[in-house]
């Protein structure tokens, strides 16, 4: 079940595209598959304690999600974005 994922600009050096696909029944599985396709990308947005990094956000169908066990449906729209912070 391939799901489309919108990729934030800081992560595009990994994907060379602003939209890619990955498989997974949960957000955690989806990100694991994404990392298999684009090695290293997961750790830049998910820390070693499996928490979404402080200045990154993941939206599923427009709703913010932090739980990696969150289920993913075939028609879900997943967006990985950077928080509105910086300097």
């Amino acid at each position, binding site marked *: 079940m391939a799901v489309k994922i919108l990729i934030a600009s800081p992560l595009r050096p990994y994907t060379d595209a602003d939209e890619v696909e990955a498989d997974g029944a949960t957000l955690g599985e989806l990100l694991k598959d994404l990392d298999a396709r684009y090695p*290293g990308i997961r750790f830049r*947005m998910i*820390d070693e304690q*499996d928490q979404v990094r402080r*200045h990154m956000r993941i939206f599923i169908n427009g709703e913010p999600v932090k739980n990696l066990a969150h289920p993913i449906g075939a028609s879900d729209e997943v967006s990985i974005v950077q928080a509105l912070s910086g300097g």
Partner: protein
Amino acid sequence: MAKAKARVKTKAGKTSRPRKSADKLVLVATRKGAWIYRGDKSSWRADGPHFLGHIINHMVLDPRDGKTLLAAASTGHLGPTIYRSTNLGKSWEESPRPPAFKKQEGGRTVKRTFWLTPAHANEPNVWYAGTSPQGLFRSEDGGVTWNEFSGLNDDPQYREWMGTEQDGTPSGPMLHSIIIDPRDPKHMYFGMSGGGVHETTDGGKHWKPLIEGMEVVAGFDAKTVSFHDPHCVQLCPSNPDRLYQQNHCGIYRLDRPSKVWKRVGKAMPAKVGDVGFPMVLHPRDDETAWVFPMDGQTVWPRTSIAGEPAVYGTSNGGKSWKRLDQGLPKNQAWWTVKRQAFAADRGAPVALYFGTTSGELWTSRNEGKSWACIARHLPEIFAVETAELG
């Protein structure tokens, strides 16, 4: 990786030893990327930016093979990583397993890799890394993959001494100054801001604090390890029994086997004091060292003293210090030099290099007697390292 190249002329004076063209490298890590300056006796060529927009805390060339270059990187949004080049930055590969704490209940998260140290000459491909918050990591494959080292990161006593993130510096608590005794790879030191200086003689199986003689902020107990804030510790290349330290509370020297630091910074002029970040040592003379004092009064401005930047040098082990400011701005220069941003090469005479919080790169080709600016308008400089090719 997009790069811009420019030639930069210096006003540096003559050197006593002719050098080949482009035989020197100055590795500059900044808040917004990294630059490699290649120089000969009169000009410098800027190669960069590498990783534009990335926070580069440290960039180090492995002196054992002369080609492995590691850069500790993060961004404001993305997690920390390590980039590796074996062709002096023409191309980079990302570590598939950068330093990270183990996953566990209440486990910590590496915010940034702060310090990189190539290991002993007899341990090729081994590197150590210090992180923020404080963690010690080791790579045995030239910086490709990293693992926690020695059990220190989860040691209950050390976790207490490391404190919380609120106990660290404004940039976060950090483990730094990882030092390997050139006579024995199992003899190591490191510093923690905060958390003191520590030593192992058995390859990291056991660590002990090495804080006696070091002072802490007035009103606090110097016997409490976590109150100590060594900013930069260095071991003399010419005498591995001598260490110097720039601390939050003074400049110190330690002559082993003694375990008592001596505050040699008390010989600094009273109006300047002995607060600062970096500590730089002469490669062949254990009596010669350089510091960059900063303002540690009241709210800790962390600027040059009175806006008049100066390096201070000693040639007698800290018994006396001499102001070295020829060529530096005379006033209204409110920058400072961070703990990794001051370095010496191995030339004769020794050339010194420092990078400022205002993004200037300065050099002295005569051991601090006079200074010339190599580059201006860089981002805030976090680290400066030197290397020689060939």
